């Protein structure tokens, strides 16, 4: 039986494609709000078209092409305000670069850098932590405003406001769309990691009666962390955070009893731990060691979590053998959500 095209299909395509699409558009139009609008327009077009025509064989390219034509339109209209005609051509050429001749290549070439740039932008320190979280989930997680609101137990208009203000703040401050380098990079990366870990902890603190969107935040944070680990693979703290989240998430289903009562780590049924995640967490920790990043705050916490993960029973926990317990530098600051 051939599957029918439900809303779920377009949702799924959006989930996969929207971060890349928005990131590519931000690079071209240099404005987060405009980029998101253009991407949304492309989504609306898809919602109108695809139920009749079917999902195109390359839906990402379709969305990109649709958004690009609108981008050119918008840039042209902007340019018409008070500028001479020959300037318009140059303006479009300059802002779109090769995008005019080969939009797919222009959007494809530097997808990794675009995504990383978008993460740094969404997590920019001029924004409040709440705004960074909302913008990140929206732009990089492909979550709707309603989903973010449900996940964080706040009214939808509050989240919508946060996102609108955040985008405006970025535009007003003229935040450049770029991957920070040099001394600034560490601080900016720390902000990205903090946002991801905040999302994770919000999901981790969800309890049995909560809306399913809350625990889903753990998965979302893990996904963002894994994506970041691919984009900034040379950064040990990124792997440290991923290791920490994989190891903590491995215990999600063991930390509450049948009637929802909390079970402390040492009393947990280790058979209910998720061994795939433990394996992944330990592998991420190995990457931290290979990059010589053992003293990072996330790496240290991950190493402590790993002491537990490696032990068959609580009694076998190797408290002293891990570098977390012996090699940790007292100067490294725990992230704020650790307090």
């Amino acid at each position, binding site marked *: 039986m051939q*599957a029918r095209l*439900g809303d*779920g*299909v377009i*949702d*799924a*395509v959006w*989930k*996969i494609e929207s971060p890349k699409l928005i990131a590519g558009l931000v690079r071209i139009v240099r404005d987060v709000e405009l980029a998101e609008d253009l991407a949304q327009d492309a989504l609306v077009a898809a919602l109108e078209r695809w139920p009749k025509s079917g999902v195109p064989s390359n*839906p990402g390219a379709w969305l990109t092409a649709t958004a690009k034509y609108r981008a050119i339109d918008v840039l042209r209209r902007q340019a018409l305000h008070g500028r001479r005609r020959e300037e318009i051509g140059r303006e479009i050429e300059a802002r779109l670069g090769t995008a005019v001749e080969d939009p797919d290549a222009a959007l494809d070439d530097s997808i*990794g850098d675009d995504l990383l740039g978008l993460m740094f932008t969404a997590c920019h320190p001029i924004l409040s932590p709440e705004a960074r979280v909302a913008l990140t989930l929206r732009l990089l997680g492909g979550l709707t405003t309603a989903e973010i609101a449900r996940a964080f137990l706040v009214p939808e208009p509050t989240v919508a406001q946060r996102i609108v203000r955040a985008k405006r703040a970025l535009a007003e401050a003229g935040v450049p769309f770029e991957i920070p380098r040099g001394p600034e990079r560490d601080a900016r990366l720390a902000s990205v990691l903090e946002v991801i870990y905040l999302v994770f902890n919000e999901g981790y603190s969800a309890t049995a009666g909560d809306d399913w969107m809350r625990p*889903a935040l753990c*998965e979302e944070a*893990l*996904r*963002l*962390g*894994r*994506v970041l680990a*691919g*984009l900034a693979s040379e950064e040990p703290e990124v792997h440290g955070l991923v290791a920490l989240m994989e190891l903590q998430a491995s215990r999600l*289903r063991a930390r509450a009893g049948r009637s929802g009562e909390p079970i402390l780590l040492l009393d947990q*049924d*280790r*058979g*209910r*731990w998720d*061994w*795939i995640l*433990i*394996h*992944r967490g*330990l592998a991420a920790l190995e990457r931290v060691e290979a990059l010589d990043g053992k003293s990072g705050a996330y790496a240290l916490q991950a190493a402590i979590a790993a002491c537990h*993960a*490696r*032990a*068959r*029973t609580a009694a076998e926990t190797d408290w002293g053998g891990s570098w977390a317990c012996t090699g940790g530098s007292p100067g490294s600051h725990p992230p704020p959500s650790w307090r």
Partner: protein
Amino acid sequence: MRFMVMVKANRESESGTLPDEKLLTEMGKFNEELVKAGVLLAAEGLQPSSKGARVRFSGTKRTVIDGPFAETKELIAGFWLFQVKSLEEAIEWVKRSPNPFAGESEIEIRQVFEPEDFGPALTAELQEQEKLLGARMAENAKR
């Protein structure tokens, strides 16, 4: 939610023919895309069934049957384990995969049970078993 995505075997995979360089490159690219999207938890390719065996159960009796096995279409040649939001998302990813073989192939997508799906059927005794299993897996993970 998690999905086991299985590549069905065919005569080519069962003969032990290795994929050519072009397919390996394409598959590598696809896998990289899955990793970069934070979707891929695990993936393996399987040797032909001639290198495997079956254990058949009948009541308390066990019979070992050596490979190869004839009913090629029921065999799997490899698998991915995806972490995604919906079956639709898993399908969308699979559609992006290169064709694993020249000509006809089939990839099957199955949702993985989570422990909570079993509900009360997972008794304390079974949980105890699972615990021992987990302990042994932890031992393996150390190696």
